[in-house]
């Protein structure tokens, strides 16, 4: 279907064998720096709200829900805007800048709930807007057969930032005796640096080669245009598999909550548990991507979800603390490493260059919404029947979804997409 001229593909393959394209490294650096900035704030916001501002958990929950809901829809708009005229860099840059500026909003809002809500919403809109154009840029600047590695490198750098952010924030709070304003200011400076790096070192879409302008042609209603990538059968199957598996993913918070319930553990270390998962993700993101490049991305994507299934089973059957703890953290890390970037690498070749951003936005939004549904369903099952029963249901549902996804995902991904 999507024909890359054979010799061009061969040439790029030779050219970049063994290393990742410059724009990918640049985008990885931008993500690393930006994630330090944003995770700093995420880490201290609950404390800031409750201890510094005296907001009740209810209000905090309200704000939290607000900012999680905003992202999904904004992402579609971001992807669409990026594809129109190939303004990936501009749209992504706007998103990064908006998030960076939102730190100043937090600083200036003082204690006012309205100002804080606005700042958080701005941050989330920024995050939603930038994700799809950024992933499209990664995809467009890498040869199709090295996409897995490119996304692996990007996600590893991104996760490094996510790990460093909270550490930086807690160190700052420790050094300044809880000066939250210092965290916001430092986060703003770091975020601004991320924007500058993007402006200076990431090439615009125009630099990535000619694209058939999608804006040409008859005007289609917006809704129709947003769903346009779905017209392709291969992409449709990938999307269906991702949504199906997403609907069987119970969410990390529940996994940690279950661990917390089953482990006798020094409580003060508990907040650091997810560090273990992130470390595994960090280590395995690149190997998983490379493996996908070699044997097809379908395999790591499915095996990643199998690892998650194994983690659920472990939570269900293992009583021993150490085995359970190490096993679950490693398996969830494997899950992320083998699925997050890999899914984008799987989808990239199935999308025409002019629809990369909107296609990825659609995929990410679909996955996010189905995960939201899964979390709500699992929460309800937990409430109604207890944690063990809910977990048994989760295991059964995920196993069924895995079987379904295995049947859905195109087996001949590489040949059909670019040969």
């Amino acid at each position: 279907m999507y024909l890359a001229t054979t010799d061009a593909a061969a040439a790029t393959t030779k050219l970049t064998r063994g290393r990742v394209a410059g724009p990918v490294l640049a985008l990885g650096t931008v993500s690393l720096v930006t994630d330090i900035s944003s995770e700093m704030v995420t880490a201290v916001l609950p404390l800031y709200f409750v201890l510094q501002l005296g907001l009740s958990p209810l209000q905090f929950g309200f704000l939290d829900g607000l900012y999680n809901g905003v992202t999904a829809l904004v992402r579609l708009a971001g992807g669409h805007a990026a594809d129109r005229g190939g303004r990936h860099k501009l749209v992504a840059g706007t998103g990064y800048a908006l998030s960076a500026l939102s730190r100043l909003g937090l600083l200036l809002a003082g204690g006012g709930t309205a100002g804080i809500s606005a700042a958080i919403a701005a941050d989330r809109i920024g995050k939603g807007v930038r994700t799809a154009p950024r992933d499209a840029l990664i995809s467009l600047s890498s040869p199709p057969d090295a996409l897995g590695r490119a996304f692996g490198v990007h996600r590893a750098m991104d996760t490094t930032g996510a790990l460093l952010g909270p550490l930086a924030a807690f160190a700052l709070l420790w050094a300044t005796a809880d000066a939250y304003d210092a965290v916001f200011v430092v986060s703003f400076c770091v975020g601004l640096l991320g924007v500058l790096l993007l402006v200076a070192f990431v090439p615009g879409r125009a630099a990535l080669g000619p694209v058939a302008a999608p804006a040409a042609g008859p005007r289609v209603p917006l809704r129709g245009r947003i769903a346009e990538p779905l017209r392709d059968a291969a992409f449709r199957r990938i999307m269906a598999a991702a949504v199906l598996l997403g609907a069987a993913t119970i969410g990390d918070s529940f996994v940690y909550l279950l661990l917390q319930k089953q482990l006798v553990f020094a409580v003060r270390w508990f907040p650091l548990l997810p560090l273990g998962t992130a470390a595994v993700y960090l280590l395995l993101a690149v190997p998983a991507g490379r493996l996908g490049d070699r044997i097809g991305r379908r395999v790591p994507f499915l095996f990643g979800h199998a690892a998650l299934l194994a983690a659920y089973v472990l939570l269900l059957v293992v009583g021993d603390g150490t085995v359970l703890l190490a096993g679950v953290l490693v398996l969830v890390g494997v899950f992320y490493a083998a699925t997050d970037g890999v899914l984008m690498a799987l989808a990239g070749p199935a999308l025409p260059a002019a629809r990369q951003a909107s296609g990825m936005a659609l995929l990410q939004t679909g996955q996010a919404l189905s995960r939201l549904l899964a979390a709500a369903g699992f929460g309800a099952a937990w409430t109604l029947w207890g944690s063990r029963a809910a977990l048994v249901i989760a295991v059964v549902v995920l196993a069924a979804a895995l079987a379904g996804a295995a049947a859905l995902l195109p087996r001949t991904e590489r040949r059909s997409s670019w040969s």
Partner: protein
Amino acid sequence: MVMTDRAGPPETGDVAGGARTGRNGFPMRARIIAVAVATAVLTTVAVAYTVTAARRADSADAPSAFGLERGQLYFRSVRDGDGAGRVARLAAPAGASGASGVAAMRTEAAPAPDHRTTGGPACERFYAAGGTALCLQRRSGIPPASYAVVLDGKLREKRRIALTGIPNRARVSASGRMLSWTMFATGDSYATTSFSTRTSILDTRTGYLIKNMEDIPLTLDGRRYHSPDVNYWGVTFARDDNRFYATVSTKGRTYLVEGDMRRWAARTLRENLECPSLSPDNTRLAFKKRVREGARDPWQLYVLDLRTMREHPLAERRSVDDQAAWLDDHTLGYALPGSGGKGSDIWTVPADGTGAPTLRVAGASSPALVR
């Protein structure tokens, strides 16, 4: 369908550091210099601000300057400058225990001059009674840590218990024997952002600590109740140091529970009642009642008469999110967000539903009148 060439990496050489002119018009070297300069400027700003903020911070862990004394109102001082975040005290108005004192308070036009004594321990939440004080602390660091610190009558540390989460409610029984506190459990950064609570009970006479009371056998509406989502908070003990009241929430509803330490059992008495606080004469419960759905001004303070099980609203019309403290049998103290959204103030209101709220201490929270 028109298919385009897969984009190769035409800019790779450019980004990888050639001195060629990039498509955005500036040579790579100029861009590198510009980013380096910007990095230096931003680093300077960040470091300078952090250093200033660190200087602003008080020197921590000064020894307590005072002990618990009768007739003094203790609170957490959140006034800027000296003693912010530390326990302070003020002399309660003369004859504050008893109806005359209340009358005196009620007729006070302006709050009394604020000659607070600062310099107590640093606490996020504080309560004291019967020669024992409970201080919930949080220490920043990697990872951050929280503690429940038990203090004696001279505010010297007797016991320290490591906890997780954000300090929320703290209570000491009238005798000083039974302690209880609630933490918001939140995965500080990486995990969930939704809150649940963890309530602990400590018997200082036996040293027995219940780290999380959610396993207490609960009878809801007369039937033994099992649900994994039960959350307890806001425990208040009766004079016998055995009976207690608390809030339990499950499936989106909140209930008042009456608990028994010796039998280790609890039963619900009433719905829609949070953060109970038992009057010194043990006949009434002050609590916050949800009067509106949603996050805007959801609660109002009420008092429930335990003999008649009748409740009445207090004169405070603003939404109060605090476990009110009885300053005497007729007066309640509680914290409200400070004017301008900064910090919080302690207000008082008569417990019988009459009168009007009075600003008692500006820039303060966690009131506790030591009797």
